[in-house]
């Protein structure tokens, strides 16, 4: 398959881009990887053209046609290259459950992590509480969805694994930078083991960036996000 057929506008550090990269690897698809600027300023012309509504990564461009929003891209990839391995569950109810938990994570998880990075230490507690609640719910969800198997998706990584696991790089980064563990065995024993399996999986290995790299970037983002807050 020619490289020019598929392009991915992204950023090595973005969990949303990581989701798409994992999906592309699961389907063994080659693509041209186009990196946006380190802290997203300025945005490339191609990004502004391809995603005029939100100007955000990831954007997958397939035969010149853009698809936006990470989990919509993952579904598109699954539906377009529909030979196995499949990413979404085959059962309609399992699909609805997976979509439900993805919507939940997207609503709660990364915005909370961003806030933890942006605010000062003494203001962080309520946000750590949110992460704890999410983990409690996801631990329950894991038990229900995995049905005793290794991943939310069963024997193999699936839709919900990709959605949630893509955040593990940033999670490690804030655990290290702010010296406070979040994903711990006492609170989420099944998820701790799942996380280890996820990052070691061949579909994921090397896509989630090294923690030190993310830590360095988080410092740059902290400055940027605090400046943006100051402008409001």
């Amino acid at each position: 398959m020619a490289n020019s057929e598929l392009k991915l506008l992204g950023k090595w550090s973005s969990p949303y881009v990581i989701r798409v990269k994992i999906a592309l690897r699961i389907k063994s698809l080659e693509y041209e990887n186009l990196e946006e600027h380190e802290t997203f300023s300025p945005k490339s012309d191609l990004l502004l053209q391809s995603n005029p509504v939100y100007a955000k990564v990831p954007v997958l461009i397939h035969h010149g046609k853009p698809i936006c929003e990470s989990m919509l891209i993952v579904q598109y990839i699954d539906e377009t290259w529909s030979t196995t391995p499949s990413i979404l569950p085959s059962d309609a109810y399992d699909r609805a459950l997976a979509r439900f938990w993805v919507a939940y994570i997207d609503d709660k998880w990364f915005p909370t992590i961003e806030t933890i990075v942006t605010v000062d230490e003494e203001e962080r507690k309520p946000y750590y509480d949110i992460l704890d609640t999410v983990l409690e719910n996801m631990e329950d969800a894991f038990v229900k969805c995995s049905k005793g198997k290794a991943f939310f998706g069963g024997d193999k990584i699936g839709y919900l694994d990709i959605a949630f696991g893509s955040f593990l790089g940033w999670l490690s980064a804030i655990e290290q930078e702010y010296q406070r563990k979040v994903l711990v065995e006492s609170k989420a024993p099944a998820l701790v083991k799942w996380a280890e399996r996820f990052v070691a999986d061949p579909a994921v290995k090397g896509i989630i960036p090294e923690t030190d790299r993310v830590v360095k970037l988080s410092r740059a983002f902290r400055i940027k996000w605090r400046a943006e807050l100051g402008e409001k």
Partner: protein
Amino acid sequence: MADEVVLLDFWASPFGMRVRIALAEKGINYEYKEEDLRNKSPLLLQSNPVHKKIPVLIHNGKPIAESLIAVQYIDEVWNDASPLLPSDPYQRAQARFWADYVDKKIYEIGRNIIWKKNEEREAAKKEFIDCLKLLEEQLGDKTYFGGDKLGYVDIALVPFYTWFKGYETLGNFNIESECPKLIAWAKRCLQKESVSKSLHDQGQIYEFIVEIRKKLGIE
């Protein structure tokens, strides 16, 4: 095998209306249960423990929460007639994108028009019209967002039409003068029984908004 379908809902909810339209489009028989949102039923709390919100679709005892997820589920399970999503993956991605856009923008900004004051309300009005104009662009000259037939984006958006009188009266502006094509589209949708039977009229919704504001002691 007889399917048992229950919908936990609240009459004025645009999200609930979406699921009602989808069920009607597919000709599915179901039991409608009206929830008192100040006194939620044990069934609702059990069925959606994470958010405790309506609508919840319950199919043979299994709950599905979140309106657009329920609509997709309905489309996938009752897939013999009236497809709501396009069959082409790219068109499907576009439909999901715009339905998601409605979710991200219309409800939140509409709420700000109703509940905020002065500059915040003015800013919300402007943003609201900008969003509707972008959606009008997407509609173009098509009969529906779904093309010749009512589809996923139509279902995602049309319930908010019932809240327009509320937005207009409280925000003191006229949506039709800004977005005539969109209003024409909404009226076309209402000519379909699946839509007209699922939506309440703007007058009723407006009275509901007025009542809530009174209860909350807002002028």
